[in-house]
């Protein structure tokens, strides 16, 4: 019996790492992942570098300079307060991405925890899923609007308000994966091997949720960015003291005919960002989990 085969932990980790690297390489071969991911990375770069990119402070008013068309002084024109649309749009990318990514991660995290609880603790399942059904019955935008009315306008409350309606969807997803994977022979084998319940969950069941969650997470991210802009546009979102794309458009909407740049530029950035996340999501789904469907 040869025991000189190397079973050192380091060697194993290296292999595990290379699995991730291989997965990443595999993902990057997908055209949608390339396009969507590339665009998204560009948007994130803009958001991160925003303070270097804007030409004047995005909140600086100059009432004498209001509603100027795009030109050398103001690349994307000025808004009704004479603020620089370009600087505001650049700043807005921070808010949109912050909201999108935070909502996606929070919803995924909370949803996963609740989904596992529902899928594993039988008595909790009924109660939890009724509550989730109830939440899902309330149209997301209405729920968000009502929650913002209670929590008060602010980025934090917008994030919470958009997250809450998304959580049930993640819970359902995770729960269904837990319930179906639990029937897989390899999970049963692990049970037969005496593996404790929490380890079965962590080792054998949870990894199955990563790919669907990643895909679902991108869709939630796109949806959150969209909802944030709609809420701001309706005047029920991030306070207008903070330049978000929705706010810029809301303030520019009545001047649509005489200064379309107030709508055009933020709308373009908004659509491009959502598009990039959606395309990325489609690419991830195609490569990771083709049977997964998107839900609204």
């Amino acid at each position, binding site marked *: *019996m040869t025991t000189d085969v190397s079973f050192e932990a380091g060697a194993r980790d290296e292999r595990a790492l290379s699995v991730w690297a291989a997965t990443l390489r595999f993902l990057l071969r997908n055209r949608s992942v390339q396009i969507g991911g590339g665009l998204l990375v560009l948007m994130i770069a803009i958001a991160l570098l925003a303070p270097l990119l804007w030409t004047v402070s995005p909140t600086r008013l100059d009432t004498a300079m209001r509603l100027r068309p795009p030109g050398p002084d103001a690349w994307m024109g000025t808004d009704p307060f004479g603020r620089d649309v370009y600087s505001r749009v650049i700043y807005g990318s921070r808010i949109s991405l912050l909201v999108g990514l935070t909502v996606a991660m929070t919803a995924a995290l909370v949803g996963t925890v609740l989904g596992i609880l529902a899928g594993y603790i039988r008595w909790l399942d009924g109660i939890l899923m009724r509550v989730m059904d109830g939440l899902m019955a309330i149209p997301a935008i209405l729920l968000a609007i009502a929650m913002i009315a209670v929590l008060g306008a602010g980025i934090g409350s917008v994030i919470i308000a958009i997250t809450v309606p998304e959580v049930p969807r993640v819970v359902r997803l995770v729960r269904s994966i837990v319930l179906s994977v639990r029937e897989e*022979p390899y999970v049963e084998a692990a049970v037969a*091997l005496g593996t404790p319940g929490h380890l079965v969950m962590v080792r054998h069941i949870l990894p199955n949720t990563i790919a669907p969650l990643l895909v679902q997470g991108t869709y939630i991210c796109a949806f959150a960015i969209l909802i944030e802009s709609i809420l701001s546009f309706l005047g029920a979102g991030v306070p207008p003291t903070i330049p978000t794309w929705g706010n810029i458009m809301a303030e520019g909407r009545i001047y649509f005919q005489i200064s379309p740049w107030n709508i055009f530029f933020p709308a373009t950035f908004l659509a491009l960002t959502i598009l990039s996340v959606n395309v990325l999501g489609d690419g991830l789904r195609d490569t990771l989990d083709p049977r997964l469907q998107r839900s609204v």
Partner: protein
Amino acid sequence: MNADRTPPHSILEIRDLTVRLPPGGDRTNAVENVSMHVNAGEIVCVVGESGSGKSVTAQTVIGLLPREQLTPTSGSVIFEGEDVLTLSRERMRGLRGKRISMIFQEPMTALNPVVRVGRQIAEVFRSHGLEPGRGGMPSISDLLESVRLPEPERLQNSYPHQLSGGQRQRIMIAMALALSPSLLLADEPTTALDVTTQARILKLIREMQDRYHNGVLFITHDFGVVAEIADRVVVMRDGQVVEQGPTDRILRNPQQDYTRMLISAVPSMVPAKRKRAPDAPVALRTENLAKTYGGGSWFRKGWEVKAAEAVNLELRRGQTLGIVGESGSGKSTVARCVVRLIDPTGGKVYLGDTEIGNVRLRELKPMRKRIQIIFQDPYRSLNPRRSIGKSLIEGPTNFGVPEREAWARAVQLLEIVGIDPDAHARFPHQFSGGQRQRICIARALAMEPDVLVADEAVSALDVSVQAQVLDLLTDIRDRFDLSVLFITHDLRVAAQVCDSVAVMHQGRVVEYEPVEQLFAAPTHPYTRELLAAAPGRHWNFQAFCEATETVAALDG
């Protein structure tokens, strides 16, 4: 076998057919330079293991190759004088169902679930501008009657899910033969069926072929079926024809090693002789074990299924107890109950002297290592995200074995089951089905169990691989003095590995005898039916001759 027919003329002639696989596969062509022919009134069996290209051949003939994935690159398929490879889409459609028809493996999914079966049969006529029961065409009822379906009038208004698998396959046959095609392609039409149903369907195909005098290209992996039905045999492997010839010649005198190997790998119906200690201690015992599903919900009071009832079994150390039964007989329920993957609703399970059927999960845990299970599907039995090494040490480490020690043991076990120990860091997808099943066995052995439950553990494997895994199972049983509870639907396999066999039917054990006695003198009618239905029971495949010692009493 049909020598008394009119001189054969060739209906189908495949010449040098090559079908290319999409790039990136493990070989360039799905089939390569394949030539064969089918005459009128003849059943030609194409035999091969998975990936041999036998289904692709049939799909090429009827023009159903997956679009843009498989493309015929050379050769010709001459059907009634025309090369179907050159026909237009519409012309090809005109042939399908009318001149060439096909039946498939899965009767459960091959019928449209939301359309009544009568309409589905009628659709064959209507797609070719005909009406059932008019213009000399048979009516739906005629057709249903001809495939021996009872109450044709009622049945044609049924939906597929209301029918049994055998009934659905009969509907498929009725549909395929509705317009009296000259060629019938049958792609493993009985593989998904229970053995008794299989026997009836095979009989029906023969009958129908006698009546319509058409040619049949019958695809199968099972030499038992071949012996039962074929006039001629074509053996395929890796997309190429290995050997072809009349059935009798192939079975008696195979020219190629591969053919020999395939034929001899079919387990014998004659129980293997083996010494066993009659007074070995009892390793596993069930006492009136029962499992009932349903009945829990307030709204579903009426819905209740007794999956297993009053099951009394006894497995002694070092022996193999087989549970044989068709699908739905409750054999897997029993297996999962004794391993406590599901909780029995009645009766007791003793592992040695300890009752484990009703204890709470906490108390159960120490008992877990004494009984292990191997599942049917080798592709789903290993966590695809964990290296096989990690899978192997999982059990022992659960019971406090230091990791280093567990690794060492894992290496040993890999060697025992015939896997290169250096492969411990690989992931399941890098292994074949047979290798995975070996790894599963190693994983179970790592626990040093007393009892091993094998739930259809070889059913999904090709016959040659199946033989090797069976050998391995027998080997480790003897080496580790294991007791094996062997769940199978296959009588041949049971005959080879079991010391005693319990036959289950509708949740109950109907007969429970030592293996020799069960095969030689079955007493329960169901057991007799089961034995009589085993395909190729007249043939001794290992000896390449007709069976001498058989269950002759059951013939007829």
